[in-house]
Every structure is written in structure tokens, then in C-alpha cells.
């Protein structure tokens, strides 16, 4: 009997030390060490990669073994940049549509990121090249203009990469480095990018400064905003549903903040600031009590473009309604024209009524310096 008992205890002790099942019992996992930076070596510059995009409307699915590397220049901590990041090397920059939120937790400004591009797709959006994933397709092979968030993506030639395993096998973290110093651009520089030509055709997509971290100095307030509001965001609101769109444009509409958060929108609606705005189908004004009640009830945050002038060039500083500084007031002296601002952020391009215009994305509130 003793033997049985002893052998049982022996078995018990053996299992205790041998198996994974005892790891949580013992609880001595220890602190994990930091992962080693990737040793993948780039074989393309970002500009070389972008150059593969040649024909507008024809996204490029990359099958070759192309590896690029760049430093992270954007940060989504403030929420103004969303699900995406910009990386730049000496040749230029590209937007990487990673598709995850709070990317700043994993990718830090200045950090090198190495991308194995094979399997990813290079596409255009409104003048900007983005590296993302192939478009959605229905079962019949027809491409879909609506993505899984229900947003119209006809204008996008790529989708978010978004799936973690694709990210883990394509986007690798390299060594940490100092944040990139922003390049100061002049009005001429901006214009040169907007009119950048490839083989005689205008292709701002290849403009070397788009997507990079830049500083624009001495911007003057333009007394104009642009904002598109969907009265019922739960209903279809693409270009075919003009009854579900309200444009705020051509003047400031009393919006003195960088953007419109949900609470900010409600405040303006209640104050009557947007009463004169009309549905895009021109059937109703926002002052209509029913429409206004609906807009208040279904309020969301909305992006606002605040117009500035760099010399004679329009710079639309576009800020998300979900940015933490959405409700931050623009300095009064700036609004009145008494002061200018220097802004640091990502220079992008936007196709507006057939013309490419310069758009600017602030990283956070600290990206704005008021010159008094």
C-alpha cells in the first residue's frame, strides 16, 4: 500500500514540474523582454514604390518582393489621424493603411517600420497614394463600393489592411530613432507638389512632400470652413442620398473650433448657428424643427476643414470631429486676422471639383503655433 501511495505522490510531483498547466499556478512568468528590431533590409525607396503607380484608377497589387522602410511621422494619439499612419524615408512618404486604432501604442514617432509590400496594394485616394489591401469583392467578383464600416469607399482604391495576421507578416518594427524634423515648406514648394508632373501628366500622387512631416509658416485665417453632415448617419448618405446631407461651406458658420465634436455639433445646432444651411436636395433648412431634432438626436463628430492661406494658396486644415482637440478654440487673434499660425503636420492633397488642393492634417494641438 505504501508503494502505491509513494508512486502516486511521485506521479503528482512529476506532473507538477513538467507541464504547462502549472505555469499559471506558479505564476512566475517574469517580465517579457522587448522584441528585437527586424533585420529585414529594404530594397526599394518609398519613391520607387510609389512610382509603380502609373495610371490613375488602376491600383497596383504588388507581387514582387519589394521591401521599403520608413520612419513614422504621424501619430494618432490625438485621434485626428485614424487607423492609418505615414512613414517617410529620404525619398518621400506614404500613407500606410494599417486599419487599427491607437497605432501610436505600437508605432512611435521616429521609429523605423519595414514593410514587405508583396500582397499589398498601392492605390490612389483623391491625389494621395496609399499602401493598403485589395478592394472588397462581392461573391460574383464585382468590386464593392461599401466597406465593412458601411462607409462608401468608391473613392478608395485600397482597403485597410486591418487583419492582424496580414499586419504581422507585412509590417515589421525596426529600430527606434529620433522623431523626424519637419521640413519647412514654402508656398512654392506646396504648389510644386500640387502640380507635380510625371511624363508630362500632372500627378500630385508622386509629389515628394505629400505625406511627409512639414511645417507651414505664417498661415492666415481664410474665414471659411467646409463640413458635410449626415442628418441621419444610420441611413444611407452617399452622393445618391442628397436628402441626407447638409453642407456647411463658403463661410465660417460661427465654427471657431478646429472641428465639430458630437457635443460641439449639438451646441451649434441648438444655438441656431446652422439654421440657414439646407439639405443638399434643397428641400429643407436645418431650422426645420423636425430636421433639427433629428440632427441633435443623431449627432456625431464631423470633420471640419478650416481654410487658411499660405501666401495666395488655400490650405485646408482638416480636423476630425473625433480628435481630442476638436472643440479647442482657434486663437481669437488668428480668427480676426491679427495673427498668423505656423502649423506642423502631414501635408496631403485633395481632389476638389477637379482641382487638386492642399490639405493639412495636424498631429495634435501642439502642432499649432500662433505668431502674435
Amino acid at each position, binding site marked *: 500500500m505504501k508503494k502505491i*501511495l509513494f508512486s502516486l505522490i511521485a506521479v503528482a510531483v512529476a506532473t507538477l514540474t513538467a507541464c504547462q498547466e502549472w505555469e499559471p499556478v506558479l505564476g512566475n512568468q517574469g517580465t*517579457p523582454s522587448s522584441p528585437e528590431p527586424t533585420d529585414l533590409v529594404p530594397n526599394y525607396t518609398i519613391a520607387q514604390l510609389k512610382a509603380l503607380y502609373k495610371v490613375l484608377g488602376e491600383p497596383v497589387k504588388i507581387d514582387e518582393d519589394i521591401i521599403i522602410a520608413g520612419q513614422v511621422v504621424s501619430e494618432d494619439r490625438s485621434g485626428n489621424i485614424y487607423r492609418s499612419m505615414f512613414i517617410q524615408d529620404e525619398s518621400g512618404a506614404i500613407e500606410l493603411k494599417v486599419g487599427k486604432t491607437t497605432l501610436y501604442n505600437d508605432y512611435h514617432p521616429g521609429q523605423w517600420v519595414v514593410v514587405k509590400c508583396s500582397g499589398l496594394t498601392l492605390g490612389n485616394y483623391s491625389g494621395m497614394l496609399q499602401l493598403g489591401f485589395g478592394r472588397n469583392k462581392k461573391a460574383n467578383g464585382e468590386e464593392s463600393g461599401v466597406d465593412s464600416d458601411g462607409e462608401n469607399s468608391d473613392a478608395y482604391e485600397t*482597403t485597410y489592411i*486591418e487583419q492582424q*495576421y496580414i499586419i504581422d507578416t507585412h509590417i515589421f518594427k525596426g529600430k527606434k530613432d529620433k522623431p523626424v524634423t519637419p521640413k519647412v515648406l514654402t508656398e512654392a514648394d506646396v504648389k510644386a507638389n500640387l502640380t507635380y508632373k510625371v511624363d508630362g501628366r500632372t500627378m500630385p500622387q508622386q509629389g515628394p512632400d505629400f505625406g511627409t512631416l512639414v511645417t507651414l509658416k505664417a498661415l492666415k485665417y481664410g474665414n471659411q470652413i467646409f463640413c458635410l453632415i449626415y442628418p441621419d448617419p*444610420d441611413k444611407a448618405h452617399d452622393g445618391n442620398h442628397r436628402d441626407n446631407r447638409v453642407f456647411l461651406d463658403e463661410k465660417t458658420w460661427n465654427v471657431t473650433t478646429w472641428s465639430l465634436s*458630437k*457635443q460641439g455639433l449639438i451646441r451649434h445646432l441648438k444655438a441656431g448657428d446652422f439654421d440657414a444651411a439646407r439639405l443638399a436636395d434643397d428641400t429643407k433648412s436645418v431650422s426645420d424643427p423636425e430636421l433639427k431634432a433629428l440632427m441633435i438626436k443623431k449627432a456625431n463628430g464631423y470633420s471640419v476643414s478650416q481654410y487658411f492661406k499660405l501666401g495666395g494658396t488655400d490650405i485646408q486644415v482638416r480636423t476630425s470631429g473625433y480628435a481630442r482637440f476638436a*472643440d479647442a478654440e482657434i486663437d481669437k487673434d488668428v480668427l480676426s486676422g491679427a495673427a498668423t499660425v505656423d502649423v506642423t503636420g502631414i501635408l496631403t492633397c485633395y481632389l476638389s471639383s477637379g482641382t487638386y488642393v492642399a490639405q493639412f492634417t495636424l498631429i495634435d494641438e501642439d502642432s499649432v503655433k500662433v505668431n502674435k
Partner: protein
Amino acid sequence: MYKKLLMAFAGLLFCSLTLPAQAPTGGVKGTIVSRGDSAPIAGVALTLYQGSVEIAKTVTAEDGTFLISNLADGSYDLDVEATGYLSTKVNLVVVRGAVKNMFNLRVSRLKEEATDEMFEDFDMEDSGYSDNPTILFGQNDVFNNIAGFNFSSVRFRVRGYSSESQDVYLAGVKMNDAITGYSPYSLWSGLNEATRVKHTVNGLEISDYGLGGYNGLTNIPVNAANVRKGLRGSVMTSSALYRLRLMMTYASGPLDNGWSYAINVSTRMGGNDWIKGVFYRSFAYYGAVEKKFNDKHKLGFVFMGAPGTRGAQNASTQEVYNLMNDNMYNSNWGYQNGKVRNSRVRMTHEPITLLRYDFTPTQHFSLGATLLYRFGKNGYTSLDWYDASDPRPDYYRNLPSYFWNDNEDYNRLNKAKALWAQDAWESNISDITHINWDRMYEVNRNNKVDGSNRSKYVVEERRTDQRDLNFALNARWNATRFLTLTGGASLRVNRTEYYKILNDLLGGDYYVDVDQFAEREYASVPTMLQNDLDYFLANGEAKKLRVGDKYGYDYYAQIRKYEGWLNARLSFGNFEAKVGGRVGYDAFWREGLVRKGLFPGLNSVGGQMTYDGVNITTYDYEGQPITSYGKSKVQDFVTYAAKANLNYFVKGGHRIFANIGFFEDAPRFNQTFVSPRTRNTIVPDVSKIKTFTADVNYQYSAGNVNLRVTGFFTKIDDQSKVMSFYDDSQNTFTNFAMSGIDERHMGIELGFKVPTPVDNLSLQGVLSLGEYVYTSNPKMYQTYDNSSAIIEDTWGVTIPYWKSHPKTNGKTQKHYVAGTPQVAASLGLNWNKNYWFVDVDVDYFDKSYLDMNPLYRTDMATAGGDGIVTPAEVDYMASQEKFDPVALVNLSVGKSWFLNRKYQLGFSLNVKNLLNKRDVKTGGYEQTRLVDNTVNKDRYYRFDSKYFYMTGINYMLNVYFRF
């Protein structure tokens, strides 16, 4: 003719009344011995009945002998109750005033080391109070004995009743949780020996410890003298829960000087074969002393507790289980530094201490009083994160189904991404299929803010710390031979503190006490983000948290409960009637200990709270300030309950009995506050729960034949429920209360055990056929969690498809109470000889349903985005899932040996689920989420439900020895 009979009856009656006046000379004597080795057993409790009238009580002496004298001629039943042995009832006849000698009365040892021990170890789930036997054993009822052991693996619940309806008492004090009503077995899990003696009544029967409810009452005396004398130890290994259990017990038994003492310690350790990440690091201790001063006074003291840490399991969707090719997949754990770590760990230590006084001034009157205090901590860890991605591996956006669905209306159109996701899961890429602890450390280490690292991911510990003081008094008075009165009173003062503490910073230096959900909406209003507004107002910033700091929320649930009860047992010949009633007073309130920024309420002098000169006090729909700090209104209820048991005993072991009861119960704290973590707001129409129940039974018990058949009917009305969830149609977190939930439980029960022509082999079986349905469409009340504002069209609105829904073919589909099979059957063979036992059972279960969420039964969900309700949408959205029926086979074997007539060594081996079925759902829930971004936006879809599965084949081997 009738007249003559009546006269004779009356005469008999007269005789029986007058007979005791003459001193009878008859009696009964004998020796109680163990069936196997004929060893005498001391301390066996014997109760002698004539019909249902208790005539005498005694215990056997050291040598197992007993004598009951002063018996009149007649037929008697002798109840023999020995700890560790099967209870027996013996019929005897005293004739001509002689003392009947029964010689050796043999009793059989309980199926080894008692079935409850094996049982308890098999039945645990992730509910916090999980190691609750769903049915209690050792209560001498053939149905419950068999069902209790065999049905635990599928979480069978007797008559479909919730576990809260089962009353569990410790030394006369009701221990069901003051807040939730859960039965409290986890408080003493691992103390099997100390809690082995149980006094149980079933169903509606009236107990000596209280009126009881409709689902039985069990009292565990836990006093030192009740623990079996001697030194005992056991080693157990199992493959379904934890690898190893070691237990030691020593009890002195009653010593000559009147003292008794007992200790019981145990540990349960390790993981199991089936569910990774689930583990135990649990201990238990029990110490008790008792002093019997004389025949009248006895005083006992007990201190016990079960400190423990154990990893929990999580439910996942079928998609995840299929991808992992494993229904036992557990999403709670991941690798840290290459080693398994579980994110959901229960850490509890809630000691109980009690003082029990027994006073027996006369043979006919006894009184007991218990003062009991429960305290300590109850923690449950969970991941918490701030402005970082959801770290749970099976989050729906991480699954193939998020990227592709054949139904194009879902807008999930990227097959390539779905295939990537599928590949990651099927290849079991552990960074994706499990929690990625290493990444969380890395994120925290890199989030430098002002020179130190602000953690983005932390482990929080949700605490529910009870201070529970109880006093209970119970008395028994055998007024006459025909009337016994039992009665008592109890008092409970409970203060439970709910709060969170920071358990692990995961490599970071600090965490910040803000409400990130509020921050998303009110980023520009700093006061509204504050979990602790007063701290912010005093310090100008939210608190930076270190390990061990309280944060998030902090409030008391204050409960006061007073109860008085009285039962009377009237017996007359073969009739017995018990009637009883109780009156109770419940009062409870919330007391907020921190001021939440969203709901500051009024300041200390009753004025509005302000910040920067702006009023920040918010008001509810009735214009009352919404308050998080301080006392809520007191909710109080006076409740009544009454029940009656009628018994008719027929010679030869037949018993026909019927029970009826009506109960009022106060709603519980957790059913009354809309969002107790944040505010004092109360559900608008909470009311008392009313239960009516009745059953009729036939029981036959003679020799080795046992049988019971029961029919029952129960109606439970006006229940309420509170939950909080993210409402996709509102794109925000909401609080949802529903009230007026009515249920009806009816069905039949059958249990039998009969000998077969083969020696020592008996056939046993049970059948439970029930229908447990909802019979009302409750009302709903939904508010925004952030603002307490009412959500339009949800206030006091009926949930139209709760009790049933119309199918597309026009028929009505009933909805069922979930959580138990409504059809359960078992048939088995039991063989017993020479200390060997072998049990084989085949069980069958059917009509198990998935727990419903109310959201899918609302007009809003069935109407979809276009607001138009169609029959197809209703049938799709409101349907309730029924689980597949299942048959299972279980085997138990045991044997014990006596060594040198002094020691005993034995083992028992249970093998459950011999057919290794791994597709048996035991429970789960519907997610309260909707797919609402469909192409045409005219309808909604459900999220996949989550399930728990039964483990495959598993064993439990227990080896024990006794000195």
C-alpha cells in the same frame, strides 16, 4: 355499519390517547454495526417514530449499543442515521410489553467517501459562486441522490429553479449571498469533511431551521462534534478541473470532559486536461471547538475559510471553436515570456467565524442561537485598457466572419482578409489566438509621458468585499405528541463594498483614474471624465494609480434583513400536516463612496456643484439631481410567505404527500439599481417577487426498493433584471432594466432504485420531464450610461417577443427558461459487494435552451434600420436556440480495505463522459449586439452566441486512508 366503524375508530383513538398514561414496559434494543466488517458504530443518531410522530431519540454508545424503553405495544419505525453510512429506516413491533431485541442492525457505508465529495469536485463553472452543487445529496431521496450525481455535468437544475432558490444554512444561519442570492458553497469548498453532515429537506418541505422556499433547505451544522472522529487523509487527482487535491482531517469526537475539536485542511492545485489556462491554487482550513457543559448547555466555535486563486474559463462563439478545432478553447489566457498566464483570475479569501449556543432545558424544548460573521475579500481580475486596442483574441473584429459573409447585406466582402484570419487561427498563431501579454508590456514601456510610463493595459481586480453579520435564533418545542412547534428569528446586516483595485501595471509606472468612455464623448469637459471628481477638484488632475490603489468605482451595497418564522407540525395517526409562515423585512440602499464626474449630484450643503463657475450637476428625467456620491433612497419591503405539507403514511412503506406554498421575496440589490457602479438611480417599477407552488407526490420505500413520483407546478412572477451593454443602434453604452418577468415551471419527477435478480446488483433510474417557460412580456427601461438620459421609445415599453414569438408559418413559438435541460433521464446499474462498488449509468438530456437577451426581443431590433417589422425579421431575431439532445455514459468504481483492523485504505474512481463527447453545450449566452451597418440599412442581424461546452472524457481518482 359506518357508525360502528366510526365508533371503533373513536374508541381506538381514545385508547391511543389514554394509553400513555400507564407506564409502558416495552422497548427496543440492539447494536448498530457496519455491514462489511460488523464493527460497532458509536454515536449513531436514532429516532423512533410511530406513524409520523416522533417518540424518542437517542445515540448509540461506544460499543454501538442502544436501548429505548417505555414503549407501548405497537408498530414503530426506527430511523438510523450514522455519519458516512446510508440512512436506514427499520420497522419493528413491540408486543406484550417486551423489549424487542434487534441484535445487530447493519448499515451500509455511503458510496465511498461520499458521493458529494466526488460531485462537488465535478461541478464548477465560471460564476464566482460556482462550485455549487446544483442538487444536494445525502438527503435520502432517491431522485436527488441519483440526479445529483449524474446530472451535474450538464448543470441540471431541479425543476428548472435557479440556484438562488436553494436555501443553504450554516449552523442555522442562511448563507445565500445577500446581494445576489447565490448559494455560497465556494466559501467552504475544499472542506468536504467539515461540511459533510447536512440536514436537508427537499422542495417545499418545511425544515427545522426555517420556513424554507420551494427548492429545498440544507443546514450544515459544521460543529466540531459532528466531524467524524479520527485522522483521515486523502489524495485526489482529476483531469477535469485541477490536478491534485490533498486533504487532512482530524476530529477528537466528543471527549469525556465535554470538549470536542476538529480540524480540516486541504489544498487544490493545478490545471486539467481540457481547458488551458484554468487552474487552481486553492487552500482551505477549518478549526472548531465545542464544549458540552452538561445536558443543557453546549457552546461551539468555528473558524473556517478557503483562500484561493483560480483561473477562469471564457465562452466563445462557435466560429472560434471551429477554427481552433476545439470546443474547450479558452480566450482568457496567453503567453507571457513564453509561459501561460490567465487574465481572469479569481482571488478570494472570505473567512467565516461563528459562535453557536445550544440550550436544551427539557426533552421537549430546545433552543439554538448562532452569531456568524463573514468577511474578507473577493476579487476577480480582468484586463483594463485605456486608448488602446481590445486585447481579447476572440474579439469579433479579429475573426474571419468580420471580413466575409456570404450574405452580402452584411457588407463583409473581403474574402482574402477572411482567409488570412482563418489561416492565423487554424495555424494557431499564438499572438493572434491568445492574449498577447508581451505586446501589452511593450506598449506600456513605450508610453512615456513626462518621463515615466503611463500604462495603457493593466490588470484590474474587481472587488466585492462583504462584511456580513448574522444572528439567528431557532427553537423547537414538542408541545404534545401531536404538535411540534419550531420557530425562529434572524437578523442580517450586510455591507458589501464594490470597487476596483489596480492589480498589475504590466511593466508601466502608473495608470490614470479616468472614464475613457466619457472621455470619448466629453473630451473637452475635464470634470466629466473623472471617476473621482473630488480628487480632481482638489488636485487639478485625475489620480495617478499605482498597484493596489482603488479606482474606477467604489460603493457600498447596504442590506438589512430581518425575518421571523413559525412552523407547526401536527400529526395524527398516519396523517401529518406541517404548516408554516414567515414575515420578513428587507431594506437596502446604495452608498456611493466616490463622486463620479458624470453624476456629481449636489454638494455637501445641497447646492449645485460647479467647476470654473459652471454648473456641473446633472438631472434625471424627473428633474432630480443624478447622484453618484452618498446614500440612495432606501428601498424597503415587507414580505410574507406561507406553506403547508400534508403527508399520509400507508403501512408497508407507502407515503402520499402534497405541498403548497406562497412566497413573497424582496427584489435583490442587484436587480434594483440601474447602474450601481455610477449612480443611485433605481429601476422604476421594482416590486416583490411572488411565487406560488404546489406538488403532489407518491413515495414507496421498503427493503431495497425506493421509489418517488412527483408532479409539480410553480409560478414565479414579477422578477426583474438589470444589465448594461453597448447598444449598436445607439452607438453607445446603455443600461437596460426589465421588470415583470414571469415564469411557469411544471413537470413530473420519477426516481427509483430496485434490486435485480442478480445478487448485489440493483437498477436505478430517474426521469425529470418539465416545461419551464416564460409567461409574460416584461417591460423595459433603457438609459444612456453616460448621461442617464432615457433612450427614446424604450421607457416602460413592453418587450413583445420575450415569452414567445410568431414563426413565419404563423405558429407561436414559446420561449423557455434556460440553464438546464428540461428533459433529463438516467438509467444505471449499481453493484455492491465486499467493499467493492461499481456504477454504470446512461444519461439522456434534452430541451436545453440558450439564455435569451431581451434586446433581440424588442421592436427596435426586429424592426431594423427601416423601422418596419416583418415576420421574417421577427422569426430570425427573436428565436431561441435549443441545444441538441445528448446521451452520456459514466462509470464509477471503488473499493476499500481494512488493514490490521485499525486502518482503512480505499479508492474511488469516477470516469465521466466515457464516450468522450465533446460537442455538448452546457450553457452560454446571446451577445447583446447587433450588426446594423447593413447594405440597405433596413434590417439588423444578430451577433453569434457564445457557448460553454462540457469537457470530454475525464477521471477523478481519490485515494484515502483513515486511522
